[in-house]
């Protein structure tokens, strides 16, 4: 048994050598990419040990003393631990509940639009916000929510309601974050569903029409089952990032007045890490988050494998 395994290993080694000689150009080509990933992805993974160390600049990562799980203990007992978890989960679940189904519904409705010209226009216009930078999006949010001149307050005043300074109220933060995200991303996210819908067998629709199905019934019983694999694949990916809220937009919209609803793990690791230079602690918080994300991704993948026979890996 062992002999066979050894022989196979030798073969692989020899095969690799022979291939290197024959296709050396390919190896030279991919070398910079391998170096890049080792340097900027794997070397930082090695640096994760900082999460268990008390980092001293002079002693470097290797020389700094081990402190076990004390950074983690400090994080779990931090006064804002609950707030960080609550905000991170709150924002991402809210984003998911609004941002996941809307592109699907949008794609389904677009698919039944008879007017080709309107369809093309809506499609093209809906992708555009995706290419606007986060900084500009946040600038536009601050313009449109302005107390004196913003359109939201103009509308509120029109209906006799008082003006609200949305960005300085913690209770509005999550909604602003989520719905502007839907505005920016729904067109782009719908592309993949639109392309899946274009592949639906038209004979299925014809059969449904003969059976007297209405358009809504065809949507539910023909289109949705046909694009189920696409939906599940994207669902798994989304589940994997349930504990991560993008840094940029929260960071830009955050201010001292709405911070109680806006502090999330990604902004916290930035603040304690780069502003307070508390490297070990920041790494520990980041690692805690990354582990939960991997766990969620693997769980979602296993679940969908069992329930829907679809999986990413």
């Amino acid at each position: 048994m062992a002999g066979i395994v050894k022989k196979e290993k030798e073969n692989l080694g020899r095969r690799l050598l022979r291939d290197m000689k024959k296709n050396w150009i390919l190896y030279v080509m991919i070398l910079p990419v391998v170096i890049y990933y080792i340097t900027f992805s794997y070397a930082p993974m090695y640096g994760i040990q900082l999460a268990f160390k008390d980092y001293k600049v002079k002693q470097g990562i290797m020389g700094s003393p081990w402190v076990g799980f004390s950074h983690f203990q400090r994080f779990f007992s931090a006064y804002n631990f609950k707030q960080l978890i609550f905000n991170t989960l709150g924002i991402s679940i809210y984003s998911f509940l609004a941002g996941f189904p809307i592109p699907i519904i949008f794609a389904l409705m677009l698919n039944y639009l008879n007017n080709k010209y309107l369809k093309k226009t809506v499609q093209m216009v809906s992708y555009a916000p995706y290419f606007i930078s986060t900084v500009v999006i946040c600038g536009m949010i601050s313009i449109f929510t302005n107390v004196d001149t913003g359109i939201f307050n103009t509308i509120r005043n029109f209906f006799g309601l008082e003006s609200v300074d949305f960005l300085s109220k913690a209770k509005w933060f999550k909604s602003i974050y989520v719905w502007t995200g839907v505005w920016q991303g729904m067109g782009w996210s719908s592309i993949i569903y639109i392309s899946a819908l274009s592949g639906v067998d038209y004979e299925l629709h014809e059969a449904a029409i003969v059976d007297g199905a209405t358009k809504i019934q065809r949507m539910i019983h023909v289109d949705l089952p046909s694009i189920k694999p696409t939906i599940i694949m994207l669902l798994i990916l989304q589940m994997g990032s349930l504990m991560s809220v993008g840094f940029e937009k929260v960071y830009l919209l955050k201010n001292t007045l709405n911070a109680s609803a806006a502090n999330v793990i990604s902004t916290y690791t930035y603040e304690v890490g780069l502003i307070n230079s508390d490297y070990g602690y920041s790494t520990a918080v980041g690692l805690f988050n990354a582990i939960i994300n991997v766990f969620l991704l693997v769980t979602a993948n296993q679940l969908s494998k069992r329930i829907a026979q679809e999986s990413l890996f």
Partner: protein
Amino acid sequence: MKAMEHGMKVKRSYSDKIFDVVNIIVMLILLIIFTWPLWFVVIASFSDPNEVWMGNVLLLPKKITLIAYEELLNYSSIWTGYKNTIFYTVVGTLVNLVMTVCAAYPLSRKDFVPRNFLMILFMITMYFSGGLIPTYLVVNKLHLLNTRWAMIIPGACSIYNVIITRTYFMNSIPHELQEAATLDGANSFQYLMKVVLPLSKPIMAVIGLYYAVGHWNDFYTALIYLNSEKLLPLQSFLRDLLMRAQTTMNVNMSGMDAASIEAKMKLAQTLKYSVIIVSTVPVLCIYPFIQKYFVKGVMIGSVKG
């Protein structure tokens, strides 16, 4: 029997008609929701600051003026940022494209022995990374901190784009071409340059534009790795103007009378519109021409494997 079928048909067409009407109305509302915010920024940037302040500018510009753009010309740091961003976008995208092809081509070759191993090595980085501080320390160790290269090298390659490109190489370029090229005595590099890349112009355009838009809009990298004002990209200055304008204004305003404070505030607000236009126009101008390629890119990327 006939009557029942007929009844069903009537009911169906009635229900479908309502659906069609509702669908068109929803789409028209969405059209307004998508376009109005962008349109408003455009017309506000060309309107008299007072009119915008009063809320009179809603559908068309009022008292057209270029004052917001004139004011912007005096704001020199924006132009420093503009120059830096053009540099980061052009050089960064070139580096990205070279790296992506260097990764995607060998990985697309079925006879490349370490193909699966390297694919896994690269794909792990999609799901797991060292995190902010360990990456920061690596960049620091390489003396990239606060240099132009910090904006380019740490993000030199995106595995997502490598997968898209590899899929394209594997599915859209006939395998027979390679055999023919080998018979003609061409090596892999010559084959890549003379056959594969000329046939891959659409995918190169797609990922090139993905990368370029990414560089143009990048705010995060500069926030983490740069602190010298000379090196900052456009987005960093934009952030100062758009998100912090009020606070910086307050500091400068001591000792001014109420009227000039108000005038200043209105102008600062108008400046926001013109700066959004100036910074976003390059992306939105090329957008109508390239959007079909973007769509194609998403579709190729969605092919599993």
